[in-house]
């Protein structure tokens, strides 16, 4: 069984030409959201149209990355075996001060100490740290 365990890899990042700028900025520590040029709506995740008005005129905007925890959980048994050694870890949905919400991890604290409505801020992963480049930590 341990051999099988070793072979489980973290799923590789997927992106599309449309979403590539989001990940490129994230690698540099910047969080981008999409802004609809026609209605002003901000959105995450990025898509091909504004989910409010269906405009295709979207541009990128960098946001500061502060927000509040919309909801949270602590993974003790991960949904994917590649995270078996990472437990317990915090999965949360953060509502940015600008409005859009994104799923993320809250790091740098006891995962059980994270609560709904807690203030959090963006944190960039270290250069050789595995996983997504951007996460959040308590303010």
């Amino acid at each position, binding site marked *: 069984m341990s051999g099988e365990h070793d072979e489980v890899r973290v799923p590789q990042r997927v992106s599309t030409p449309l*979403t590539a700028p989001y990940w490129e900025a994230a690698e540099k520590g910047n969080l981008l959201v999409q802004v609809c040029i026609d209605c002003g709506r901000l959105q995450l995740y990025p898509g091909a149209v504004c989910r409010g008005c269906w405009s295709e005129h979207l541009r990128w905007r960098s946001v500061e990355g502060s927000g509040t925890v919309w909801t949270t959980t602590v993974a003790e048994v991960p949904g*994917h075996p590649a995270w078996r050694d990472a437990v317990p870890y915090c999965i949360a949905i953060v509502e940015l001060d600008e409005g859009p919400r994104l799923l993320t991890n809250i790091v740098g604290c006891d995962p059980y100490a994270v609560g709904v409505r807690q203030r959090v801020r963006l944190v960039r992963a270290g250069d050789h740290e595995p996983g997504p480049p951007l996460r959040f930590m308590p303010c």
Partner: protein
Amino acid sequence: MSGTAIVGIAELPPRRSTPGTTTLELLAKVAVAAVADAGLDHLQIDGLVCGPQVGETPQHVPATVAEYLGLRPRYAGMVDLGGATAAAMVWRAGAAIAAGMCTTVLCLLANSRDPAAPRRSPNRNPIREFDVPYGASGANQAYAMVAQRHMADFGTTTEQLMCVPVKERENAQLNPDAVFHGRTITLEDVRRSPMVMAPLHQLEMVMPCGGGAALVVTSAERARDLAHPLVAMLGAGEAVTHRALSQAPSLTTSPLAAAIDQAYRQAAIGPNDLDLLAAYDCYSILLPITVEDAGLCDKGEGGPWVAEHDFSIASRLPINPHGGQLACGQADLSGGMGHVVEAVRQLRGAAGARQVPNAELALVTGNGATFSEEVALVLAAGER
């Protein structure tokens, strides 16, 4: 859609594994049983609705199933609404009949299961790109986050959530087909089961199984001449709002509220008229939110309500007399059909030892993804 009736039901008991069988084979078995239950010949089936068959038949599902069963339907479709699929099939079948496309529809769901060879379908969608990299795969984490917000906003307690599987197991002791028949549990058992995604323990989550279920839907007019007392669909509602939990309009009011409201209005009934609630229950948190969204209590009161409420057949409003999926096991999408089948059984007066006395009106709910794709049906004993 009044004039739609469910005249045939069948289930294969959920089992942890179905070694050596294919989904098509299970579909065939349960189809034969449902059509026989309706007292019909398979040549009278002229409509077919199927569900997704991940890993076995990625495309052309209705044609593959029709061919395998020797059917030549005049209406063939697939519904892909997760746990709401079964309930969604019923009103679609009624709509196809009302549109003159066919007369008698077979709604069919099954899933073979080999725990040693899980079927994974590689996604390339926003959840895969934006959620999975954070270790957020599968449904457990999403329902845990729904529960966490309900607790934070309304003071719902883990004890209130944990009593849901306890009560459903109790009901399942009258259902020999339930995976957990003969195995009641206590709050302490739930508390001591492994924490999977806080605040949800393992015993607050469904047990994945293989199995199948089927329904035969026809017009009320045709139903009058058939074997069983007629069970009519009086109302239906459907609402789809999101897929990724981050995009949900609300974590505490689900799209079930709109779906149930529409089903009530079509049926011209309200929550106080119900004799039975067949509530979709893949996790403990489903019950508090469902009873709130069904208007059985105020928003936020679902925790205390489920803790105090009697789920048994002696109750003024029994909930899932068969034990629900938490006690029966979840045979993939056919687990959701189990709620429809149980409601039909009860409304026929054919539920045997677990018959709800004088059951005339039932609300059935279906839930897919994470409170994402929701369907409600109001079913009645006889025509109105």
